[in-house]
């Protein structure tokens, strides 16, 4: 499987954006757009209409849970995956209620993180989209 879609990567921490970008590039040749807070994310989302959005929860200016409904208002079918660290069940449930597709723990070991991402991509996109 090779993933070549557009990805919007939203996280205020540069090391996470770097790490996750590298990880995404091992899965194919995605086009990655980066935002550092929710407000930037909404702007970029509107302009680029990404196939996949990875959205951090804790961010300055406008956090992930505030941003999520704004993105879904633009595109109700958007695939939005919350980036979390120590999963607090509450946040995951809240995000799911608001229509997030899934969540991803960015503190997982690399292989597990890659596997989780691969699975999200496999289940969210039709196999005929790439390959």
């Amino acid at each position, binding site marked *: 499987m090779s993933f070549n879609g557009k990805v919007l990567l939203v996280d205020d*921490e540069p*090391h*996470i954006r*770097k*790490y996750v970008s*590298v*990880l995404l590039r*091992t899965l194919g040749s995605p086009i990655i757009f980066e935002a550092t807070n929710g407000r930037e994310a909404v702007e970029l989302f509107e302009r680029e209409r990404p196939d996949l959005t990875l959205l951090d929860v804790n961010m300055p200016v406008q956090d992930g849970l505030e941003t999520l409904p704004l993105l879904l208002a633009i595109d109700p079918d958007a695939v939005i995956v919350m980036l979390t*660290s*120590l999963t607090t069940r509450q946040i995951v449930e809240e995000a799911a209620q608001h229509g997030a597709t899934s969540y991803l723990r*960015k*503190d*997982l*070991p*690399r292989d597990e*993180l890659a596997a989780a991402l691969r699975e999200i991509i496999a289940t969210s996109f039709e196999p005929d989209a790439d390959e």
Partner: protein
Amino acid sequence: MPPSEPTTFIDLSGRKILVVDDDRVNIRILHGILQTAGYVIAEADTGEKALELYQQFQPDLVLLDVVMPGINGFETCRELIRRYDVKAAPVIFITAKQESDDIVEGLNAGGVDYVPKPFRQKEVLARIRNHLAIRALIARQRSLVTQLSLANEAKNKFLGMAAHDLRNPLASIRGLAEFVLDGTFGPVNAEQTDAVDTIRQASQSMLDLVNELLDVATIEAGQLNLRLAPVRLAELIEKSVALNGMEAARKQTRILFDERDGDPVVALDAAKIRQVMDNLLSNAVKYSPPGSCVHVALRLSPGHCAVSVRDQGPGIPENERDKLFKDFGRLSAKPTGGEMSTGLGLAICRKIVEAHQGVIVAENLPGRGCEFRVTLPISPA
């Protein structure tokens, strides 16, 4: 030498004493003595009035006559304790009733002391001073305990926050180092590989420490919420053996799950018990001589199942036994392959096992090595 000089280090002047006596003359005498000694005084001539006055005067001590019209001193004292419980001011009975039975009844009613009339001035003052000092010390202890528990709470919160904020950067460092080592960014020479691998290992050790600190903070804050579900214990053990077997292989050590008694399904928090298993196995490997063997056994007994991990390491020095399951209780034994140890692992294991109503013990084996055994209840349902 005059014996009367008080030796207390607490300043008791200005403390408030409620004097209760139906005899005007007695009250006047006591008033004079106490005022001269620097106390603030309020007076009542019945138990009922004393109870009323207590509320607004908030005395530090009550001098209480026993025989009075209306409710007597013993009843007054019981009522004070009923109303104010441990916060009630100490009561000293001061009375002509001085049969042994009276004294016993007074002390049983909650009085802290009993002074027979006629009294000696110095003796009354000395007794009052001692009880005021005790009360002041108790108050001081209470506030210290409150402060300490607040400080401990703040520490746990800080620990949790710090650890939480360190996790993500550490995970990124580890992950990016792995990408470099993989050659994702291009070829790396042997020296670069060595350096980046050191970075990877160091970030892994820090992650382990941070995770354990987080566990401690969570557990200490009383937030260890178990998510119990039926789990096939043997399967859980097999997974842990497989994972730790890889690390063991680097030291030519083998982990053998070679004794099992059936396939019990146990209600437990799989992730937490897995953490315990991982910890016991990695410890066993850590302290085993290279080339040795770690044996894992699962045994059943009515109502219980026990998992034991036996190693061929140096065992636990008898004089360090009590440190084994405590926070930061690192012993003198050194890992045989230069591994890291935070000294938190077994403390966390104990807390997890105990949260499952289980028991964890360690004992030295005859000859060499030791055995860690976790016993968990199997609910009949």
